[in-house]
């Protein structure tokens, strides 16, 4: 109980919001709109999982939004050229992994700070995409949306798949040796090295993995509509970093888990629909999101201060 206090308190906050919605805006609970909203968050969830890995390993990746756009546009162009989805999917994952490998090489290989490296790759990728696409939408052929299945099947498939990824990764992080390595690298790289783990190699692969997940998420986004907008990933990085941190993953590395990140994501994703249902004007949205982030970290600070006495 005590060990998972942080995750449980976020889950508690989420439940409180959901309960408040049940009382004040019961219309929120309609199966079809909820499923649609959940489907919209499925790609974000996958990116958030990757981000949790990166942050637990004491790094950060702010280029994920740009990667997401690049993967989405490339996958869209391939699909528009008539590639079958079975080929587009691995291509998108591979492009993401490649972009992640670039970050990984610069961070792990050259020992550069990840925040600056990914800031640079974020700007470079985004402007590169602007230069090439000039904002033009990619129109996808019929049969790409929902993988050619019916809408409801497609939505359940995407949500189910994202949850499956979450569960598998959460369990892997907790129980597999590779998962424990991530914590080891994040809490004390030197000790990890002495224990026989190669932190550099680990960090490199975490960035590659992050990129691959972004490529996967871009595909989950691609199949939700018949067009891809090149701006699609703008602002995604801040959304997932905020979700992961609100969910109790420590930015200083080595602490946190995917369940917390999941709860954090849901909590933040609830803000906009909740405001709409409660008929609060949109002007307050950013301030409320900022307040949630601050509240979560302040709670962290207070607890650790009390723990120290």
């Amino acid at each position, binding site marked *: 109980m005590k060990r998972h206090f942080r995750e449980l308190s976020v889950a508690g906050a989420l439940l409180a919001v959901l309960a408040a919605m049940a009382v004040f*805006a019961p*219309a*929120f609970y*309609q199966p*079809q*709109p*909820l499923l*649609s*909203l959940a489907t*919209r968050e499925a790609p974000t969830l996958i990116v958030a999982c990757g981000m949790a890995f990166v942050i637990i390993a004491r790094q950060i990746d702010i280029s994920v939004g740009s990667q997401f756009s690049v993967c989405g546009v490339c996958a869209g162009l391939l699909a528009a050229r008539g590639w079958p989805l079975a080929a587009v999917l691995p291509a998108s994952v591979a492009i993401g992994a490649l972009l992640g490998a670039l970050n990984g090489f610069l961070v792990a290989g050259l020992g550069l700070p990840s925040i600056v490296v990914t800031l640079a790759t974020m700007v470079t990728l985004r*402007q590169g995409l*602007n230069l090439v*696409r*000039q*904002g*033009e*939408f990619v*129109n996808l052929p019929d049969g790409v949306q929902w993988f050619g299945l019916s*809408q409801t099947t497609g*939505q359940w498939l995407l949500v189910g798949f994202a949850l499956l990824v979450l569960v598998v990764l959460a369990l892997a992080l907790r129980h597999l040796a590779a998962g424990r390595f991530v914590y080891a690298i994040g809490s004390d790289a030197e000790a990890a090295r002495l224990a026989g783990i190669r932190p550099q190699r680990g960090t490199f692969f975490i960035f590659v993995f992050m990129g691959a997940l972004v490529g996967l998420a871009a595909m989950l*986004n691609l199949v*939700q*509509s*018949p*067009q891809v*907008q*090149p*701006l*699609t990933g*703008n*602002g995604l990085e801040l959304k997932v970093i905020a979700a992961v941190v609100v969910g109790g993953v420590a930015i200083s590395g080595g602490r946190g888990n995917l369940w917390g990140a999941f709860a954090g994501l849901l909590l933040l994703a609830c803000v*906009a*629909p909740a405001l*709409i*249902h409660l*008929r609060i*004007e*949109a*002007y307050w949205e950013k301030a409320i999101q900022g307040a949630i982030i601050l509240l979560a970290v302040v709670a962290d600070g207070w607890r650790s201060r009390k723990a120290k006495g």
Partner: protein
Amino acid sequence: MKSRLLRLALLAGLVLGTVSGAAAAAGSKLVVAFLPKSKGNAYFISCKAGAEKAAKELGVELLFDGPTDSNAAKQNEIVENWITLGVDVIAVAAENREGISTALRKAQKQGIKVLTYDADAMPDARSFFVNQATPEGIGHALMDEAARLLNGEGEFAMIVATLTAANQREWQKHIEARLKDKYPKMKLVAVRPCDDLKDKAQSEATAIMSANPNLKLIMSICSPGVPGAAEAVKQAGKTGKVRVIGLGLPNENRRYVKDGVTDSVILWKTEDLGYLTIQAGVALAKDQLKKGATSFKAGSLGTFEIKGDNILLGKPFVFNKANIDQFNF
């Protein structure tokens, strides 16, 4: 090691220099600079196509640059750069009326001809405004179209680009004024920003529909919001029950208009807007267009009316199922 890198950088610089030096042969041509609100926006890309056509016909050089996002401060910086480059004409779609006027007045003082298109600056900061439709005209057209579809009765919601964009605020103001004046039985239940992201517009529209079961129509006044809202309506299975209209381009909306999800997309002919702007700018620089003129002949497009210092492009155009296939932009 470091000095080697430095040498490399210098070498790269020299190569670039030669390339650009070779390209810098122009100088006899009239130079017209064309500033959009945001470069990556399909709307302005389409304006640019018309501008390029006019520039080619008239034999002038066209510069096209703008912020990659809608950014008032950056617009000023670009205009000031053009002033020192000594261009002959500057045509601007103003992100912010007062902000840009500072820079435009400076340009006029240097003898550069200034005109605005799409969104006006302060009247003293430019010679002419190529008026594709006044904010009032756009607001009224959208609101009237919404009322026509709903027979003047029912709830509707709006999707805007951001809460701070100047033109969006202006349009919204006129839509709300028209609503108050003419359609007492209609009600605006939500206004949500989508940050110019189609995907975000889709999420917002989904939530709006679930919160407002009696919603009859979604109106998007930013172009990525129209397909976003349409996709949400389609996925909610409310095609025909919740109408979608908005400002947008035919190509981004064709699919939804044909499927009957989106009823109508309102826009002027953006290519003509770009074309007319460049024609007017060049005429201004050659002293063929002067204050007080009442009409202007713009190349292959024919003659346009001038009212005061506004060159009128004509009424906004409504694209719907019947006519959308005739347009490709």
